[in-house]
């Protein structure tokens, strides 16, 4: 499945639109990671565990969105947008949405 964040796919023509598809996940970090991150907060720098966590969460949300698009019979998703919000202390929500289309 073709996925882009542009309104149209360069080199392809959109022939049908199937509406908005979306996928979301809410992830919390586990305590072990939180303690390590707390230590890392003293010296600063990248928190690799969190980076990985968010990447995994995005992948999952992405798969859910693609499954929804496949169900609608689309072969591409255009105009994809990401949004992140923290729903509770220590948990964040990843939401991905886009427009399912058929391209030729």
């Amino acid at each position: 499945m073709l996925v882009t964040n542009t309104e149209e796919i360069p080199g392809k023509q959109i022939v049908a639109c199937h509406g908005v598809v979306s996928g979301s996940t809410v992830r919390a970090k586990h305590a072990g990671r939180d303690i390590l991150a707390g230590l890392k907060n003293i010296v600063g720098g990248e928190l690799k565990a969190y980076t990985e966590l968010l990447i995994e969460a995005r992948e999952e949300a992405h798969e859910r969105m693609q499954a929804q698009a496949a169900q609608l019979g689309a072969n591409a998703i255009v105009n994809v947008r990401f949004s992140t919000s923290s729903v509770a202390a220590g948990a964040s929500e990843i939401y991905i949405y886009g427009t399912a289309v058929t391209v030729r």
Partner: protein
Amino acid sequence: MFELYFLLGLLLVGYVVGQILERSHYRSIEKREAEHIGLATTSSKRPIGEIPRPTRVELVEGACVISIDYFKRFVAGLRQLFGGNVRSYETLVDRARREAVLRLKEQCSAADQVINLRIETSSISKGNRNQVGCIEVHAYATAIYF
């Protein structure tokens, strides 16, 4: 008394180690930015210039979570009394954004153009007095292959 020494110790460790880590991170960012300078990246919605028909397009992403050190957080806290530029946070967001864009480019180094680059920043943890502990930057774009 012990608490005061503990705080001073944390500040000192944060300052020394934080500075060393930040410098080495900046060196690595600059080196990798120079390597990827040839990859045209834009926030425009359409490809730039006259291009041949693309053979492949894909969504590429890069993400990075960076935390600020103890010393800088302390200084930024003091800054809030007087207002003005908070330099210590400027380097934090700058590092995070450049790193995220670099990771995106590394994912598609064979691409010919990267269009519609979007950068999104969110703070994922808040500490005492609602201070920002670490920020997450997520960059995403469409890579085009001719």
